[in-house]
């Protein structure tokens, strides 16, 4: 890949063009992480001056019941959301990669939820899940079943996962479609001549060719899982500002921006970042192992 070598005054243009990005990296990204880390060792309500707190914000976390609940909910959410999103969007992409009637319409319908504001579609799902009048419970009462409190503490995790998966399938499907369309047709023709079954074609041609997309999509979906907020806020927040299914991000939002407990929020944000970082590293390890085989 050829590129130009800047000369004389051109160097200034290079710097000028990169300035916003450099400022963003320095201030908004890495500077912010360091600042958050520093804040996590203080207690600060933004009204009085910050007080040094040592490691107490971290040490208090395990005995903080709300935090432990949020941590558990976040992990459970990710454990359900990531595989469901990746597998469903891959299956739909495989279906859409066939000569089927009305393919354009299908694509639009599957993609639409990914485009709409989660706040807006969250209201719709709240209506579907509504305890005494919602569509789901109306359906249950038609068949004589008891109504379910879909967004109550017991079911909220599953209900919220379903909505998040619904909202994420569209973009996942696009990634897999691009991956599928990049597989050369000849690969399939060869297996057809060999008399391979549909299952063998999937196992030995499609899945290996999709491996990079599966990897990429898993990493991305995992990162998104740990940052999920909008649907959880709209669907599970209660009158007192708490949630029937608080996640780490919800807890950070509540501590930091509702109660202005900046030290607590910062410590929780650092825990969240560390978890994402660790998982991403694990993914890359797995990918490397795969590549070696």
């Amino acid at each position: 890949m050829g590129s130009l070598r800047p000369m004389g005054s051109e160097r200034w243009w290079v710097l000028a063009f990169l300035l916003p990005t450099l400022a963003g990296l320095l201030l908004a990204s890495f500077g912010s992480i360091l600042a958050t880390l520093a804040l996590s060792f203080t207690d600060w309500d933004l009204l009085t001056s910050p007080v040094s707190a040592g490691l107490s914000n971290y040490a208090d976390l395990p005995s903080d019941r709300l935090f432990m609940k949020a941590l558990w909910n976040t992990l459970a959410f990710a454990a359900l959301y990531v595989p469901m999103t990746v597998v469903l969007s891959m299956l739909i992409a495989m279906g859409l990669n066939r000569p089927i009637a009305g393919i354009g319409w299908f694509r639009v319908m599957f993609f639409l939820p990914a485009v709409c504001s989660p706040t807006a579609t969250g209201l719709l799902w709240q209506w579907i899940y509504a305890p005494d009048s919602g569509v789901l419970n109306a359906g249950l009462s038609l068949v004589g079943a008891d109504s379910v409190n879909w967004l109550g503490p017991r079911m909220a995790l599953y209900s919220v996962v379903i909505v998040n998966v619904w909202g994420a399938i569209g973009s996942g499907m696009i990634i897999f479609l691009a991956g599928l369309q990049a597989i050369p047709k000849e690969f399939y023709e060869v297996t057809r001549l060999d008399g391979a079954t549909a299952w063998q074609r999937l196992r030995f041609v499609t899945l290996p060719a999709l491996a990079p997309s599966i990897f990429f999509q898993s990493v991305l979906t995992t990162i998104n899982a740990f940052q999920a907020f909008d649907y959880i806020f709209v669907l599970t927040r209660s009158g007192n500002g708490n949630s029937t299914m608080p996640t780490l991000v919800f807890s950070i939002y509540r501590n930091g921006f509702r109660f202005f407990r900046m030290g607590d929020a910062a410590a929780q944000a650092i825990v969240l970042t560390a978890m994402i970082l660790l998982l991403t590293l694990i993914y890359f390890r797995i990918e490397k192992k795969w590549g070696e085989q």
Partner: protein
Amino acid sequence: MGRAMTRMRRNDWAAFLALCLGAVAMFGPFVWLLSTSLKPMAEQFDMRLLPQQPTLGNYTRLFEIMPFHLLIWNSLKISLISTLGQLLTCSMAAFMFAIVRFPGRNILFALLLVTLMVPAQVTAIPQFIIFKTIGLYGTQAPLYIPSFLGGAFGTFLMRQYFRTIPLELAEAARMDGASLARIFFTIYLPLAKPALAAFAIIAFMVSWNDLFSALIYLPSDVDKTTLTVGLALFQQQYSGHWTLMMAASIISMAPVVIAFFMAQKQFVAGMAMTGFK
């Protein structure tokens, strides 16, 4: 369509049926949303799909009980400024990453990609403190200022596109004494229109749909805040008024949905290039 029909094999029919079921799950909620928004209040618990007495009354009432026109205007303004900031600063950086060799280029680009892993909530805490300290809390500025600081997704997308433009064009212009800025604005940007369009649409959508930052900077001021926060406030005040709420939901998704139907290709291209939502 007819032709596709005749070419479908048995497995294709199975896939077709599965896709139909999937389409009901994915698209069905929208049908229900539209139908409820057109029902009069008296019919809101009527589970029939079609409204018996369809009305636009919910839509007109919305604007009477909350300044939805202001919310729409605020969201539009913030999203357009943010999109502009992203287009400009990301393509500027992308241009340098794509065609100029400078010390530290690869490290810088790698660092940029690493930021994709950093949760927005982590950077939000110090940013909130800074904006509050300089007195911008409660204004719209914190919602669009960060868009002028580039970003990994946009820079990556534009860089990929710039790299497909033959370098000879830039070299020739340089021989004629054009500055790098001139080459960028008169050659690269005009040639990158397809990528810019795809990126603009995604950037607009992300900003329009943003709830988190609007919620922390403008949590309750309906004259200044965005449609998403307005909707969340509306949800609390009018809980149980489902017909009204569905109308509010339709109004707030309409601009992006219309843009989606008009520019499907750009939407799909933008998402495919970045895997970004």
